[in-house]
């Protein structure tokens, strides 16, 4: 704990020192003026210890987003120095009204995954440090979870953020085995409660949409960051929606009175048929899903038109009727 505290103290001092100067400061000067570094006693061991410590500190600062610049102030400098430009470091001015701040407070509760929930918490800390008052205790009891329970989510997100190539085993629902995919990940989309990864499939040389829950194992990022550029006009949600949407079809059915309540919730009534059944018209972009739904209503629902839907439902019922029979 003692060591960790010393390190945190040194890092804060380093940030203050580099923020306080417009000049690039050499590593030697940092070593001499920022407390906590191995002093220069002329030995190689001390030099090595300082170098290792300083490298780790630079990495740590860059990790949390401190814009540490390297360069030389004048042509006479013999080595690179360091500085932090205040304009790149500081969060710009932001003022939120009470209502706007309440919206931010609510929004930040949407995340569940460790990575984004942690990021939401530290974003909140920064907004508060910028003078914004966000009261999270107020408001309605609500527990939203946008991103629960998909183990592949975080590696996919990190690869899309860093624009690194991602490989994973993916199992299509109609395939026997998982196949290896290599993808330039463009982003993740939550669509109707499911997470999808959108990207360019390097082997199929075309854009593809993957259900995150069908990725088996842990996806692996490889190669350098910034390895590709997603299309400039990319609309992630539209890519997934485009894949899901199809042409609209009209289907007419008869339902016994008082039955097929679920179907009626998305159907238009066409009035009673001569036998007392209700005639209903249903719109669908997915004939297979509707055929599944209609077959599940059994004898309560009879398809009138089109003929292809009648046949699809009869085929399902025929298979179901054979169930439990000796083959």
């Amino acid at each position, binding site marked *: 704990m003692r060591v960790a505290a010393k390190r945190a103290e040194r890092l804060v001092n380093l940030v203050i020192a580099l923020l306080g100067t417009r000049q690039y400061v050499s590593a030697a000067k940092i070593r001499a003026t920022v407390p906590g570094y191995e002093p220069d006693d002329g030995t190689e061991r001390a030099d090595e210890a300082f170098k290792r410590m300083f490298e780790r500190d630079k990495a740590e600062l860059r990790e949390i987003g401190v814009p540490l610049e390297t360069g030389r102030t004048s042509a006479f400098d013999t080595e690179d120095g360091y500085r932090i430009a205040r304009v790149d470091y500081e*969060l710009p001015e932001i003022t939120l009204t009470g209502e706007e701040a309440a919206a931010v407070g609510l929004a930040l509760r949407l995340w569940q995954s460790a990575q*984004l929930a*942690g990021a939401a918490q530290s974003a909140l800390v920064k907004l508060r440090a910028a003078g914004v008052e966000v009261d999270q205790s107020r408001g309605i009891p609500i*527990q939203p979870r946008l991103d629960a329970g998909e183990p592949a989510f975080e590696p996919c997100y990190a690869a899309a953020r860093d624009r690194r190539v991602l490989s994973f085993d993916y199992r299509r629902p109609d395939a026997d085995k998982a196949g290896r995919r290599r993808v330039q990940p463009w982003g993740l989309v*939550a669509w109707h409660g499911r997470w999808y990864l959108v990207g360019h499939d390097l082997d199929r040389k075309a854009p593809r949409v993957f259900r995150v829950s069908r990725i088996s194992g842990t996806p692996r990022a490889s190669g350098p960051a910034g390895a590709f550029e997603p299309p400039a006009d990319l609309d992630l949600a539209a890519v997934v929606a485009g894949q899901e949407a199809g042409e609209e079809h009209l289907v007419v059915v008869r339902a016994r009175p008082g039955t097929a309540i679920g179907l009626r919730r998305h159907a238009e009534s066409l009035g009673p048929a001569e036998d007392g059944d209700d005639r209903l018209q249903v719109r669908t972009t997915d004939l297979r899903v509707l055929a599944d739904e209609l077959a599940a209503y059994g004898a309560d629902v009879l398809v009138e038109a089109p003929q292809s839907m009648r046949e699809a439902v009869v085929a399902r019922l025929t298979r179901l009727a054979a169930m439990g029979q000796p083959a």
Partner: protein
Amino acid sequence: MTAPSTAERLTRLLALVPYLQARPDGVRLADAAADFGVPEAQLRRDLDLLWVCGLPGHGPGDLIDLAFEGDRVRVTFTAGMVRPLRLSTDEAVALIVALRTLLELPGLAEGEAVSRALAKVSAAAGHPAEVRAPVAVSVGARDQSLAVVRDGLERRRALHLRYYVPSRDERTERTVDPMRLLLVDGHWYLEAWCRNVEGTRLFRLDRIDDVTVLDEPAAPPPEAHERDLSEGLYQPGAEEPLVRLRLARTARWVADYYPVEEQAEVSDPPGGLAVAVRTADLSWARRLVASLGGAATVDEPADLAAQVAGEARAALARYAD
């Protein structure tokens, strides 16, 4: 020693002085600790550490200076730390995607305020190129009931629901005492005490056909507990029977959608999957199997298969007429 906690503490340390600077009258230590989401003792340790940090030279005039007055603290010298660090990419994504999601959820927050907050946060996040977040969320926005349910929760009133129950294909009428709203896997749920069944229930908002706020106060009884959802929405009791299904290739998705307890690859049918689902609700199981149109067969219980087959034969008879 772990990296995330160092990063987390460093982020907090760098934000603390600007936080105090933005509140020149000082802050109660307890409030500051709550704002940073840490125990008060941790906040004190953080302040003690900052007190010995400062500009190079570390003379008396170079160090960060804090003034403690009773249970309050304020900063009297910042050593140049006047603004918090910019938002990182993850932080900007978490904020911006969440605000965009709120915009898609009419009725949950005041839409105009969300839009303005989104514009301001995007501007403060800087670098417009980075704001093109690698995450997008599309939530079914046709849940008109959301605004009414939220109103009932806010004013702590009982609600009257007309609610569709898919497993029984029926519409029910109930009076409930609302407890909280949940967003799970893209669907909104109202958790409430249902007076009709005298139990806590989850109501999916897109299955509420009509909702009205009643004049009487919401009064969930002491035995109404919020469910722990970390194990998923559907948590069957261990005593509920297992329904064993054999899924053909085209029905394997069932294992993604429903909480299956056991699953095993099988060769009959080719590429098939044998799964076991624990449920006492056999009408739900019957509907599921029927809606799979033969792509799933029932191994257990035997009478479930017979029931599904019998219903299908009755339906075929109508087509034969």
